[in-house]
């Protein structure tokens, strides 16, 4: 793509195709390419290879603007650090919780899990399997129980057993469902009543295969429960999760983690440089 000898309109067409096919969306793509044209004029860029570098740095900067917003995680002694994990159905929340549990465990922290999905068939069982595998306690009630009540018990247990990290699983829910979004707000209130700072992290899990709806998801979930971090799961597939650029650009929410497989070790910290390079550079 950048192997040509000069910058032509063809280059921009090809770049547009590449960015759109990575799910960046029309608006973000047009903005990036407009900025690229400006830089090419201003900096009198003649070589496609230099144009490539300009685009690459521009894309990294766009993501870094959001990553900069990442709150510093402060793990206080005696105060459980509560991570509320949310998102639409099937994105990878429960699996991401298992991965985060392992990550924190490896850092020497005491971890507990809360089976806050009391709705979906075998959701509690699924989390319990992970709990057994990682030797991490899981606070759960019966299916159909009030998620607020399970979370309350979870907060209580975290204090009693000196948990450093409390990971709270929630049921997948479409942001278009008013009652389910209200339920999420209620879960958050339960936590805040228990510990003013909780939840210290509200993690939205987005599926890398999601198209433009990912931006709507991020907006709606942020409106309901103030998302602090985003995880993009399933980046081991062919989808690039390009909606991350639109989210960074419009909401400034930091992408903090990427899921790269179904194993419990398949979690990495989001790195804007490697992410952009993997796209096509």
């Amino acid at each position: 793509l950048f192997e040509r000898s000069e910058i032509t309109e063809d280059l921009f067409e090809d770049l547009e195709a590449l960015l759109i096919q990575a799910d960046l969306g029309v608006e973000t793509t047009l903005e990036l390419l407009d900025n690229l044209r400006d830089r090419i004029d201003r900096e009198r860029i003649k070589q496609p290879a230099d144009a490539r570098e300009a685009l690459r740095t521009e894309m990294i900067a766009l993501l870094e603007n959001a990553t900069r917003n990442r709150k510093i995680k402060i793990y206080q002694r005696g105060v459980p650090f509560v991570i509320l994990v949310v998102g639409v159905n099937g994105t990878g929340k429960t699996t991401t919780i298992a991965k985060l549990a392992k990550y924190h465990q490896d850092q020497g922290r005491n971890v507990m899990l809360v089976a806050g999905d009391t709705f979906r068939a075998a959701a509690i069982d699924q989390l319990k399997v992970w709990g057994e595998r990682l030797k991490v306690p899981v606070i759960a009630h019966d299916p159909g129980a009030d998620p607020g009540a399970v979370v309350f018990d979870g907060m209580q247990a975290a204090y009693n057993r000196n948990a450093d990290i409390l990971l709270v699983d929630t049921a997948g829910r479409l942001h278009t469902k008013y009652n389910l979004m209200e339920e999420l707000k209620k879960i958050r209130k339960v936590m805040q009543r228990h510990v003013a700072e909780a939840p210290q992290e509200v993690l939205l899990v987005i599926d890398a295969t999601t198209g433009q709806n990912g931006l709507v998801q991020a907006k709606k979930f942020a409106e309901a429960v103030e998302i602090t971090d985003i995880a993009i799961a399933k980046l081991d597939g062919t989808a690039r999760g390009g909606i991350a650029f639109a989210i960074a650009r419009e909401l400034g929410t930091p992408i903090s983690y990427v899921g790269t497989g179904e194993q419990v070790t398949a979690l990495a910290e989001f790195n804007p440089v490697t992410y952009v390079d993997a796209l096509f550079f």
Partner: protein
Amino acid sequence: TLSDRLTAVFQRIGNKGRLTEQDVDEAMREVRRALLEADVNYKVVRDFVSAVRERAVGEEVLKALTPAQQVIAIVRDELIKILGEERVPLQLAQVPPTIVMVVGLQGSGKTTHVAKIANLLKKEGRRPLMVAADVYRPAAIDQLQTLGGQIDVPVYSEGTKANPIDIAKNAVKLAKDRGYTVVLIDTAGRLQIDEPMMQEVERIAEAVKPHEILLVADAMTGQEAVNVAQEFHRRLALTGLILTKMDGDARGGAALSIRSVVGVPIKYIGTGERIDAVEPFYPDRLASRILG
């Protein structure tokens, strides 16, 4: 909406009696943008818009009194052509049991829809058997068994240590022995680029020769829908598509993409998490939704 944008385009162009090809180009840019925003695949959009353009430049739009509406009508018509027929039923075998296998990416809604379809079949008076062939995902078997309990449909399982190919074969044998008329095989979510997993699902199909192989696709899938569907189709010869999570606000352009490259009928639309949240497919409804 596309309708508003096209109206604006043609208003800007003004009333000069007859539109030029450039005017149509500008309208086509709006159509293209609307479809890309609806997650229709880039290459599919390119082909689609050139088909629309050809019709628009023909008599229809150049002389139309309301060119914006005429373009919309052409776009809708072309969408419906690609989206295919409504209410295409599950192909039942001449001699039971009918074997249905469900495949797709992780988290797309396979397990839930195996149960939904089993429930529909049961209500029609058939005898479905669900098969738990996902031995990888924690509590996947529990999930299918829980759903089976809710709808009173039996689940065949050999636990997580068994081989999915054997599970499928044994389930079909049991169905024949016990008179189950439809066998619904739930498989693990898998990436289309995961060679061993794709071979697994090929081998299950080879072993039990399903009458229906349904790709389950999430309505919010973006550009990769085409590559995913093409690869599953190349390796399995899909017979149908289930589009899930249509109760959200994703435009569902992935459906158009998949239909134009794979061409199998959309057999079911998932519209919620509950067992009864499944509907037959109506192309005009999906066309309106994709158009926004």
